[in-house]
């Protein structure tokens, strides 16, 4: 019955609604969104808050939402699936957070000043750089070009009243016909924020420094090499929704890329990149009062990898081949300090030095039938090997799995297809896909990882099968000079769905925990996502934009899956005239009634908040200034969303000011 309803809703959306598209070239359409960040976003009319966090930028996407554990380092979820089921890369580089509690998603190690845009792809079509179920986000770094000799300087500064956040950034760019160098630095410092009722949310402070530099050199017209580094360091980061904070989260991300763009060839572009990144994450509860036992939980993650990606065309076929590999090393420890100082420290590996080696190939073929229709087929094949390198760690996990071997290998496959048709402003598309993923380090090898939301200690299960997803998607859209409407829907049936289930025979380790859960697989789970967006140009100066999303997730026992968005909406009216622009917007969620109390969720009431902002761009001689001033949650509403960990309240009224200067 429920399924029938879903299908009806799906069909309804096909007939009435339409799909999101940015441009209208003849090239194939993808279920893809591009969120402009950083430099591009300096086009001041594009973004309401140019110095917002990456998280705030990503949250604008129809496909992306954020699980929030505080004011910092939100965890992106794509199509209502959390990080295990998604793929987040930085310019194609695989990076893995070092925190067992997901307090450091990859997005937390970069800054808006490093990035140009984020490409969000739904489902299997996002599998270019690795395996995914829900989709992918590729954060694209600022793209530099060789050209006429030119220097550029930018200064960015911002202030937000609610948490006294101070933002200061600077960048220098130089280019000529042979070289380019880009360097930027950005600092943020914030105190505790206040929720809607004016109550201070303790332990929500953070401090972050980010530095990045890119250097490009061109051997000839079509061969170039680029090295890039990002160094990011966050200190004193509070996580009010969790029992622990982070004293240090530090990342160094380095890469070297060789690019070859043949002229007059079927090969359009060939790009090869070698990369390395290292992350250190120190979680502790030193600053928390009244902890039952003091503990430190540091984690380390190191990844080496490469990819080599080539685009070429033959007749009506456009091919993409990407060979890629990575080797990751994840270690996390827990040390507890007994109240009796003479007693030995209590120590365990929560991630037992798990090494993951992945080697894969991704192939894509876009077949353009004619100027209206095209078919895209993609497939990937990879080998995924986990190896527990620490004997101590292996013996620990063997407490639960006495027969466990140090090494476990898997084969991961995926295949997807999408048909698209465009005619007279009207377009539609549909896709079918199948994909697999391996369990994450926590799901496979986690040892007594406490989840403060449901209150259970979680134990990994190395014997889990690959999770497999069947996916169907539809999109439809219409567009003319005054009007644009898009809608899309996707349905995932995920087999061997990995989730932690309570084992009543086990006694929790964490003081006050409700019990122990072991990662296991449900026969299947289903997820339905749909969204609609519309843009209407009311006049040359006024544009009205609205979007809404809805999702439903059920497991094989027809219970709700956790962290599934209720109806959520946003509507904005934007005014642009010459150098001035202004925007007023309302966003909100309906009440979350499809929750799962087993995972700590409860009914989250509906909410709506009001935001305004305005910007002005002016010149003084050769100096360009852009200012933005705005108010978020103007009515100071006290609210929390379905994705707020432990119902932590969101930020109350906040006035921000951004001032950008460039020369």
């Amino acid at each position, binding site marked *: 019955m429920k399924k029938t309803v879903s299908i009806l809703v799906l069909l309804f959306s096909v007939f009435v609604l339409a799909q999101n598209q940015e441009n209208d070239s003849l090239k194939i359409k993808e279920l893809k969104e591009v969120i402009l960040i950083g430099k591009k976003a300096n086009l001041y009319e594009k973004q309401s808050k140019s110095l917002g966090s990456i998280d705030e930028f990503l949250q604008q996407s129809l496909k992306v939402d954020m699980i929030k554990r505080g004011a910092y380092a939100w965890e992106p979820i794509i199509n209502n699936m959390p990080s295990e089921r998604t793929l987040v890369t930085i310019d194609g580089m695989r990076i893995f957070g070092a925190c067992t509690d997901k307090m450091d998603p990859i997005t937390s190690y970069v800054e808006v000043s490093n990035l140009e845009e984020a490409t969000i792809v739904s489902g299997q079509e996002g599998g270019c750089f690795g395996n995914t179920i829900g989709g992918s986000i590729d954060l694209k770094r600022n793209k530099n070009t060789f050209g006429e000799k030119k220097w550029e300087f930018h200064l960015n500064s911002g202030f937000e009243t609610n948490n006294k956040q101070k933002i200061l950034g600077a960048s220098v760019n130089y280019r000529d016909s042979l070289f380019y160098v880009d360097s930027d630095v950005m600092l943020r410092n914030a105190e505790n924020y206040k929720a809607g009722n004016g109550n201070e949310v303790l332990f929500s402070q953070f401090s972050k420094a980010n530095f990045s530099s890119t250097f490009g050199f061109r051997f000839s017209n079509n061969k170039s090499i680029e090295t890039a580094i990002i160094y990011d360091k966050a200190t004193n980061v509070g996580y009010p929704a969790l029992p622990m904070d982070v004293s240090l989260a530090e990342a160094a991300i380095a890469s070297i890329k060789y690019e070859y763009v043949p002229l007059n060839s079927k090969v359009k572009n060939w790009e090869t990149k070698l990369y390395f990144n290292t992350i250190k994450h120190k979680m502790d509860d030193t600053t928390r009062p009244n902890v039952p036992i003091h503990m430190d939980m540091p984690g380390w993650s190191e990844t080496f990898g490469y990819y080599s990606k080539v685009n070429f065309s033959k007749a009506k076929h456009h091919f993409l081949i990407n060979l890629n590999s990575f080797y990751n090393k994840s270690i996390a420890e*827990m040390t507890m300090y*007994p109240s009796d100082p003479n*007693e030995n420290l*209590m*120590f365990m590996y929560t991630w037992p030095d798990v090494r993951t080696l992945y080697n894969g190939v991704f192939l894509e073929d876009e077949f353009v039938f004619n100027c209206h229709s095209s078919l895209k087929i993609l497939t990937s094949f990879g080998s995924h090997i986990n190896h527990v390198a620490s004997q101590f760690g292996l*013996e620990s996990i*063997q*407490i639960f799995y006495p027969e466990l071997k140090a090494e476990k290998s898997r084969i991961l496959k995926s295949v997807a297809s999408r048909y698209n048709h465009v005619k007279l402003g009207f377009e539609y598309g549909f896709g079918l896909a199948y994909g697999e993923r391996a369990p994450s380090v926590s799901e496979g090898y986690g040892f007594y990882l406490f989840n403060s939301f449901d209150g259970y200690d979680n134990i990994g299960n190395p014997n889990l099968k690959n999770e497999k997803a069947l996916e169907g998607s539809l999109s439809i859209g219409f567009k003319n000079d005054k009007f644009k409407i898009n809608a899309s829907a996707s349905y995932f049936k995920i087999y061997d769905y990995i989730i932690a289930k309570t084992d009543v025979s086990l*006694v929790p380790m964490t003081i006050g925990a409700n019990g*122990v859960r072991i990662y296991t697989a449900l026969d299947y789970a289903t997820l339905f996502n749909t969204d609609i967006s519309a843009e209407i140009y009311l006049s040359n100066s006024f544009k009205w934009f609205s979007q809404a999303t809805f999702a439903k997730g059920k497991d094989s026992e027809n219970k709700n899956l956790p962290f599934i968005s209720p109806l959520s909406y946003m509507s904005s009216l934007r005014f642009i005239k010459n150098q001035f622009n202004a925007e007023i917007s309302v966003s909100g969620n309906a009440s979350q009634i499809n929750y799962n109390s087993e995972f700590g969720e409860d009914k989250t009431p509906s909410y709506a908040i009001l935001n305004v902002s305005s910007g002005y761009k002016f010149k003084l001689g050769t100096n360009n200034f852009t200012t933005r001033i705005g108010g978020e949650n103007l009515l100071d509403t006290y609210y929390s969303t379905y994705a707020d960990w432990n119902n932590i309240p969101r930020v109350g009224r906040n006035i921000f000011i951004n001032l950008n200067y460039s020369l």
Partner: protein
Amino acid sequence: MKFQLKNIVAILFMALTLISCSDNDDSTTINELDGLTKFQEMTNTTHTIELYSHIGALVQGYNEVKLRIKDNVTNQYIKNATVSWMPVMHMAMMNHSCPNSEVEKITSEGTLYEGYIMFQMAQNDTEYWDLKIDYSIDGIDYTTTSVIDVPASAKRTVNTFMGTDGVKYLVAYAEPHHPSVALNDMVVGVWKMQDMMTFPVVDGYTLKIDPRMPSMGNHSSPNNVHATQTTAGELYNGKLSLTMTGYWKINLQLAKPDGTIVKGEEITDTVTSSSIFFEIEF
């Protein structure tokens, strides 16, 4: 032809290596003592008995003891002796012994003899243990007795108690020597006091274990296996799961073959410790 020659050379070379290996045969006598440290010598007019253990000492609780007998004249180690021992505690009002095993030769070629002694109490200022070793070589009996040093153990490894059935029992922790964060193979001993000098192994019981960390909410660990006996007269084997380093209290219950608990309490929210337990810290 050349190829064959090469093979022959290779075979010859291998043979030489084998021969040179066998030259080291004498070293087995040295290898015997790997991981062992001598802690005492007992001397009489004819022989010197060297006592060894892993930690190079005796301690209250279960001790694996190895010994060898040296002829004072020839300085050769005796390989064909029959050995027995009797540890005795000298108290103010009485003497008593403790659980101990037969003494057996480890290998026929080697020089070491081994057994265990479980000292249920430590020495103190006025009370002491001595060890009497009787041995016979080629039909001739010899004996020697020395005072031995048995200090108190830092952690509780022995429980001596009167069971509900009126029998006096002794349980002791033997292994693992070096516990690790793992599912450890556990060895314990269960004896009863028949009289002051006789402490036979109790057969067919179960020593139930429940390891807990009192410093951390008294949490337990999964997949422990209670200690049971595979062969009558032997020590008991179980599995001890330790999920982290630190101080563990292994709460015990001693059950008869019919399941009756003769001593020890089950751990619940209100009962946080059994009256019999072992302690380990690593």
